[in-house]
């Protein structure tokens, strides 16, 4: 089978290898990891017609530049609105294109978004940990951070010319500043005025933003009473409030347990849209009932599946979509 190789010529911080992540290990302290924006990652794979989900590269606002030194392979980019160019010709942020030896790919932050995904039509060779190449940022386990000078090897590299072109960006993959939350599970540690402040005043993302979470600036959400709850589980989307009253939204590489109260939890369908915001962007939180959250999850899954089915159907196996969705969400 053909292979293709790249050399990393420029790379910023927080650029790492990710796949669908590792599930079911939170009881051992291991979060799911995987893409910060699972939607963008799934779209890039579907646009490329990948029937299995190989390791890919998550690109932060630090950017990435690669030179293809050997072979040819088709790539896809989707996630944030980044600036993308092959050699000197710019093309859309979301696109499928083929790279040949000698070509240079440059990905830099563009008009919107914090993360974008570079996916290959082939198997990016990467270290695995517990069955996944997803990088757990605190330990570096998994595929790992991308370093300047690193050689990336794609085995089973394919050229899929029929898939090249722009990828449409659906509404459900764009940043969202109104985030739906279900209050709790520890909202009882907060006075009614504090809950009111959470729901009626804007917050903004700070620079303290990485794969573990993002700290928010805004009204102080000071807990009342003694903080003596024993540590309990945290999920992706938990809004945890530290003793100083500052909230943090926990993300892909979150710690799995914590002893600070979680005032509310962002619903899963809004999280991928939230992570594409940038520091200083404002958000507001909207409280919905658990029943409304379940309904929102169903609506989200339907539009997501329909979109991926259409993307795959450009050419490929439509049966792929169901397994793909199950693996990604």
């Amino acid at each position, binding site marked *: 089978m053909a292979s293709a190789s790249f050399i990393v010529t420029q790379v910023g911080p927080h650029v790492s290898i990710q796949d669908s992540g590792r599930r079911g290990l939170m009881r051992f*302290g291991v979060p799911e990891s995987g893409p910060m924006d699972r939607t963008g990652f799934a779209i890039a794979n579907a646009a490329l017609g990948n029937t299995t989900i190989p390791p890919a590269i998550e690109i932060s606002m630090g950017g990435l530049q690669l030179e293809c030194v050997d072979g040819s392979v088709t790539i896809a980019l989707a996630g944030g609105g980044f600036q993308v160019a092959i050699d000197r010709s710019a093309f859309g942020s979301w696109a499928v294109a083929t790279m040949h030896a000698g070509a240079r790919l440059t990905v830099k932050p563009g008009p919107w978004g914090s993360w974008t995904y570079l996916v290959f039509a082939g198997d990016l060779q990467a270290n695995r940990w517990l069955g996944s190449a997803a990088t757990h940022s605190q*330990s570096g386990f998994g595929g790992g951070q991308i370093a300047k000078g690193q050689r990336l090897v794609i085995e089973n590299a394919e050229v899929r010319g029929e898939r090249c072109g722009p990828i449409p960006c659906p509404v459900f993959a764009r940043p969202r500043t109104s985030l739906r939350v279900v209050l709790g599970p520890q909202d009882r540690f907060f006075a009614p005025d504090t809950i009111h402040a959470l729901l009626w005043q804007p917050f903004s993302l700070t620079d303290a933003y990485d794969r573990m979470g993002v700290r928010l600036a805004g009204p102080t959400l000071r807990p009342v009473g003694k903080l003596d709850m024993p*540590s309990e*589980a945290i*999920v992706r989307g938990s809004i945890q409030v530290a003793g100083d009253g500052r909230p943090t939204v926990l993300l892909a590489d979150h710690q799995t347990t*914590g002893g600070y109260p979680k005032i509310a939890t*962002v619903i*899963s369908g809004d999280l991928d849209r939230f992570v594409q915001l940038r520091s200083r962007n404002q958000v507001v939180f909207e409280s919905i009932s*658990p029943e409304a959250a*379940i309904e929102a999850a169903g609506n989200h899954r339907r539009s997501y599946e329909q979109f991926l089915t259409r993307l795959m159907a450009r050419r490929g196996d439509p049966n792929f979509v169901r397994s793909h969705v199950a693996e990604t969400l």
Partner: protein
Amino acid sequence: MTSEGAGFPRYRPVADHAVLVEFGETISHEINDQVRRLDSALSAAPFDGFTEAIPAYASVLVDFDPIATDHQAVQRAIERLLVTNTQTPSKGPVREVLVCYDGELGPDLDQVAAATGLSRDGVIAAHMAGEYSVFMCGFAPGYAYLAGVPGAIQLPRKPSPIRGVPAGSVIIAGPQCIVTTLTMPTGWWRIGRSPTPILGSDEKRPFLLDVGDGVKFSRIDRRAFDTATARS
């Protein structure tokens, strides 16, 4: 039958995909036994749409697929499991963890001795005499929270954390003890270092310690520590 506190268990919805089941608000064997009872009942007979359970000191987070089920149905399924599963699961195996307390491997031993009125050897003897069991795993990969630190050496955590504490550090705070697996900041007291591998790579049994396991600390000297770390 275990006695259940007033109003427990409590069920709290979490976003669109989980229910937090609380059995109490304190760290005790009795409450943690109820956590283990639900955890093992779920793993033996998961309901439709069940994805993952995360046991903690006094609660279990039960994660589910919102396309397959919802919070109310999950609560009913858990209530049924608690009615039909009244046996607390037996404890797991007792795992041996080697620890070297010598010199700079236990950098806070002298401070712990001063704060507790014990000698350095007295602190070590007290630590080794504890009967430890894993109440929960969390925070970071393979971090097992061991309850059982004897009262004589229970201290509140330090006012501010120390950065760059190496993997394998044996740290204590209050009734809890942890053998760390990654280099991390900690405000707990560093009393020794272990060469025992806790993080594995076997997907079926990725970590040495699971909830319910016992732990016995065995003392080794510096030479044995250096030999063991050189091997791994």
